[in-house]
Every structure is written in structure tokens, then in C-alpha cells.
């Protein structure tokens, strides 16, 4: 095994890549949520002035990438690579957003784990010297996801208490090499997760389906790096929601590890429980926007020193749900540290 891998599955980045700049955009419900003021831009119109919701999601992603690049004082065309993902079939929101940028593009699908997946791959690319300026971005849109996975919006269905609310949001990060002193955050470790499936079939209880994946990846990362939950200022899972978060803490408590004091969840942070989102937020844009609106600024100014972002994804399609398959899930983790010149 070469020097960059440690333990079972963790990758130690020898020259920790930096997160130079980031941007988060969201919709109206996200604006009304607890993190509303921390977004770079919010759209009160869910169509974002476009003709369809799919176009609106493309717009969200374009704006996030453009703003993040702009904060580095770079045109988007100066990027070496865009790593992007979303929830739409064939990952089209990302592809359409990358169309016209003239930047090499990789479309990723990790469901709601996509932001951690793109950050982790981007960090490896930069550490390996394969790219200097990588954009990692993910988006989701409530309306596009809902009509793809569930029912038309105007259909009078009832949501169960365990259901989660897909965020209308996008987050984009620009990664640069370790030598970039201006960049305030660095990525020290990444851990790509295995696909876990404990047999949950209820597509309205994604948090429960994804908690075992989060547990598996986090346990691997902690043991590979020889760290404890208390060594981090926060362990942020992506989109487990209320139900999945409780299950994750319970799974760890079976190992006599208490993560509840440092654990929080992007799906719980993005919305207030009064916003009628049931078990919390979800979607690629949830972890992406919470990272870019809430977590990265805190790492940048030193309010937090070291965190884990462990974004989880439920790897289902409408067809697999109809065929009664259980829900496989994956979780990718990224260790982020405050660092760089103040």
C-alpha cells in the first residue's frame, strides 16, 4: 500500500489541498430557515426566472460556480476541472450547467452524498498534481426531485413524519493546491464509503436507510486515523434528518462511543422544525449549501478548527423503489481543517 492510504480505507492527503473560495445559493424555504442569512444568494421564485424547474436547478448551479470562481477573482473558464452532481436522471442539471463553460467536466452521482464525493475526488486530484483549480459543486431542487421520485406537486398526498424535504439549493467550492496560502481551509483526509444496505425499503424513511452507511464510514475514518469524536469540533452528516441522526447515535452507542455531543446533521441545520419539513432537509444541495453557507465560514475564521463532513446518499431510482428493492446507501467523509494565512 502506498503512503497515501492509511488503515482500511482512509486517504491521507500528503499536501493537503485548500478550499480557496465557496458560494451557497438557495430558494425561498432555505432563506426562511435558520441559515437564511448565511447564503450568498437566495431566489424567492422557485423557477429562478426560468421556464422549467429543471432549468432553475441548472441556474442555481451556474450561479454557485460563477460566484465561487469570482471570489477567487477567476473566470469560470480558468478552472481546470468541474466535478458536479445532482439528483436528476442522467445527472442533467450538472451537465447543462457545465455546458458552455469550456472546462473539463466530470458528472458524479452519489445522491445526497455528492458534495462530499466531489470534494473528496477533487482533493485527490489536487494532491496528486492532476489539477490546480478544481470546482466541486452539487445541487438539488425540491420541485425537480419531487416530480421525479414521488408525485406531482399539486397532488394531494400526505407526507409521513419520517419523510425529508429536498433542499432547493446549490453549493460550490474551489480547491487549490497546498501552497495556496490565501486559502483559509484545507482538506487533510478523505474516506470513500462502501455501499451499505440493511434492508430498509421505505423510500419515505431515507434517514434510516442511510444511517448505517454514515456509521460505517465514520467508524472506518475514526479508526484509520486513530481519532475520537472529541478530536473534532463537529461531525456533520449530510441529510440523515431527525430519524437517521438518532439511529446513527444509537449505532455508535452500541460501540460505547458517544458522538451525540459533536454530531449534527445538515438536514437538521438547514430547516427549522417549524417549517413543516418533517424529518429535515435532504438532497445534494442540502449538504452542499450547509457546507458552503455555514461550515466553511466557521472554519475560515477559526470558530471551528477541525470537522468531518460525512455526506450520505440513498442510491435508489424510481424504478428500483417500484420493484420493491431495499435502499442501498453510501457515505463519503472529508476532514476539513482551519488553516492558511489569517
Amino acid at each position: 500500500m502506498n503512503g497515501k492510504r492509511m488503515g482500511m480505507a482512509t486517504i491521507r492527503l500528503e499536501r493537503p489541498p485548500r478550499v480557496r473560495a465557496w458560494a451557497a445559493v438557495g430558494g425561498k424555504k432555505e432563506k426562511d430557515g435558520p441559515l437564511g442569512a448565511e447564503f450568498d444568494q437566495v431566489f424567492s421564485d422557485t423557477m429562478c426566472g426560468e421556464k422549467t424547474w429543471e432549468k432553475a436547478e441548472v441556474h442555481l448551479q451556474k450561479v454557485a460556480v460563477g460566484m465561487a470562481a469570482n471570489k477567487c477573482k477567476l473566470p469560470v473558464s480558468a478552472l481546470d476541472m468541474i466535478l458536479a452532481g445532482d439528483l436528476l436522471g442522467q445527472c442533467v442539471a450538472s451537465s447543462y450547467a457545465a455546458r458552455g463553460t469550456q472546462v473539463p467536466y466530470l458528472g458524479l452521482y452519489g445522491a445526497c452524498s455528492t458534495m462530499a464525493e466531489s470534494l473528496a475526488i477533487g482533493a485527490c486530484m489536487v494532491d496528486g498534481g492532476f489539477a490546480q483549480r478544481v470546482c466541486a459543486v452539487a445541487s438539488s431542487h425540491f420541485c425537480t426531485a419531487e416530480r421525479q421520485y414521488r408525485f406531482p406537486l399539486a397532488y394531494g398526498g400526505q407526507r409521513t413524519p419520517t419523510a425529508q424535504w429536498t433542499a432547493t439549493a446549490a453549493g460550490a467550492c474551489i480547491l487549490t493546491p497546498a501552497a495556496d496560502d490565501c486559502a483559509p481551509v484545507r482538506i487533510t483526509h478523505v474516506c470513500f464509503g462502501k455501499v451499505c444496505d440493511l434492508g430498509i425499503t421505505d423510500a419515505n424513511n431515507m434517514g434510516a436507510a442511510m444511517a448505517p452507511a454514515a456509521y460505517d464510514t465514520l467508524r472506518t475514518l475514526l479508526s484509520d486515523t486513530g481519532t475520537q469524536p472529541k478530536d473534532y469540533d463537529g461531525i456533520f452528516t449530510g441529510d440523515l434528518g431527525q430519524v437517521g441522526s438518532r439511529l446513527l447515535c444509537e449505532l455508535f452507542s452500541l460501540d460505547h462511543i458517544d458522538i451525540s455531543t459533536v454530531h449534527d446533521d445538515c438536514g437538521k441545520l438547514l430547516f427549522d422544525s417549524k417549517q413543516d419539513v418533517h424529518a429535515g432537509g435532504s438532497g445534494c444541495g442540502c449538504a452542499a449549501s450547509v457546507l458552503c453557507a455555514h461550515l466553511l465560514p466557521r472554519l475560515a475564521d477559526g470558530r471551528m478548527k477541525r470537522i468531518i463532513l460525512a455526506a450520505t446518499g440513498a442510491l435508489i431510482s424510481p424504478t428500483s423503489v417500484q420493484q420493491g428493492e431495499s435502499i442501498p446507501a453510501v457515505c463519503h467523509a472529508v476532514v476539513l481543517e482551519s488553516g492558511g494565512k489569517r
Partner: protein
Amino acid sequence: MDVTPQEYEQMVREQSKPSPLLRDMVWAFAVGGAICTLGQAILDFWKKTGLNEKDAASATSITLIGLAALLTGLHLYEKIAKHAGAGTLVPITGFSNSVASPALEFKSEGLILGTAAKMFTIAGPVLVYGIGASIVYGVILVFLGV
């Protein structure tokens, strides 16, 4: 520690909040009852205009379906349905909502392949099995009658 799918299922059941059954049932009863009462009033109205029993029943269905489609278009039906659950799902108005909502939503894929083709994605099975069952019933009647 590794948990088995059976142990995990148990954990999930304990942690997942169940739907508030009693509250949901009260809502379903009240709204469903109200829609049926409205239906009765509409039925009496059509009878008063001189329609016979059967035609008045058809006219009542058509009226309720039209009203529900209008409420769907105004995005009010889903707001009531969020609380009413089965109260808005089970009456014929729910059938109308299940036809009008995909018709409206899939307009973005065009009036042929979107609106028209997707119109019966939810309500289609109701017609298929409803009409199917009625034909089976009819065939049985024919053979019993012979």
C-alpha cells in the same frame, strides 16, 4: 459493532415517529364527510332541476370533479389534502385531483407527451381495475342468468 438487518429494523421502528393516527382520522372524517355532504347538496340541486336519479348522480360527479380540478389548478387542493389525507383522497374529488395534477405538472414536457400522456399515471389503475372488475361481474351475471 455490526447489527443484523432484523436488529436494525427493530431500531428503526423505535426511532421512527408514527403518523398521528387519531388526528389524521379526525381530519379525514371531517373533510371526507364535508365533501360528501356537499355532494348531497349538489345531488339535491340537480334533482330539483328535473334530472332523473341516474342523471343527477352523473351531474353531481361531474360538478365535484370540475370543482376539484379548479382547486387543483389554484393549488388549494394540495393544501387541504396535506391535513385531510384520506378525506380528500377517497372522494371522487381525489380522483379528479390525481388526473389534473400530473396534467398540470407535466405541461413542461409538452401537451401531448407531458399533459396528455401523464394524465392517468396515478388514476389509470383505478380505471383499469374498476372497469376490469365490472366486466368480470357482468360476465358472471350473464352465466348465472343462463
